[in-house]
């Protein structure tokens, strides 16, 4: 059974699809790994990470978008998540990404983010897109810049504290 109305699309090395029960454990492990999850939201307790997994599914039902699972075609394992996030208190919808242990340094997040951004511009008719990145997360900032996003402003995020807002090129700029 599919848990969400999420789309399913493929890139060269990846499958982007809705979250499913079999993805829970990889997310819980990632969330408890402070060095990897700090810029996204470090969640040491299993039950809290499980709740985040459930609320992402709810986010899909409420907004019609949320985080997709990035599945590695070669192994079939979850390699991370990438999607659109817009909970209460967010400045505007953002595209975010996270790559799990063992899949870093291979351009997975870049490949996923290009595909997700193209999907929201084409199918959800977004006219703009942001990424909120904590200033210390230099790897994520480098990826945002590689995606063509530029720093717009500093602000106080309700969850993450001091945060930097990057804005992606508009749909017409990517054609």
């Amino acid at each position, binding site marked *: 059974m599919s*848990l*969400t109305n999420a789309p399913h699309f493929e890139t060269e090395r990846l499958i982007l699809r809705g979250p499913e*029960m079999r993805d829970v454990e990889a997310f819980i492990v990632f969330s408890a790994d402070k060095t990897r999850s700090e810029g996204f939201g470090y969640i040491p*307790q*299993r*039950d809290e990470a*499980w*709740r*985040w*997994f*459930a*609320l*992402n*599914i*709810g*986010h*899909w*039902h*409420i907004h019609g978008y949320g985080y997709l699972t990035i599945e590695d075609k070669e192994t079939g394992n979850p390699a991370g998540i990438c999607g659109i996030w817009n*909970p*209460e*208190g967010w400045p505007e919808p953002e595209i975010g990404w996270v790559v799990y242990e063992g899949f870093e340094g291979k351009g997975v997040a870049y490949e996923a983010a290009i595909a997700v951004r193209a999907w929201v511009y084409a199918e959800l008719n977004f006219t703009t897109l942001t990424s909120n990145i904590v200033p210390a997360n230099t790897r994520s900032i480098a990826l945002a810049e590689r995606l063509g996003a530029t720093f717009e402003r500093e602000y106080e995020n*309700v*969850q993450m504290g001091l945060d930097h807002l990057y804005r992606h090129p508009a749909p017409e700029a990517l054609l």
Partner: protein
Amino acid sequence: MSDFAPLGELFASERSIYIGGPIDRQKLWYWVAGEVGSWSLQGFSSWGIETHDGAFVGQVGVNKPNHFPEVELGYLIMPEFGGQGIAFEAAEAARAWAFETLKIETLVSYIDPKNACSVALGQRLGCVIDPDRSLPDGETTDETVVYRHRRAA
């Protein structure tokens, strides 16, 4: 999502101390989204309770987040609708649904012993204290008592 505004007021106030509050709007949104997601993930979760004329009066739910050892029947009523037997009516209906549709054998309610209204409602629903059962992770007997619902014979 029209339930969100009244829930936001309740959870911002001290009246939410026995239901996990007070919590801010952002955290509450995560909470509500988690309940929405749980319907897909588990096939059960929380309902909004409305009167027949459409007023939002509270929530009742059958829930088992990861840190609960068993499936719980829970309820909350907006303060202005308290004392009308709404929680009893909703909890009975939710319990019957859990037993008949989900075929769940037994349910618990985790109640703070200081929450006199909820203790009284648990008793009115025919629950009995089950002292040997484990509590949700991280909770102590000072704050949580396990009341057990039995399927009617």
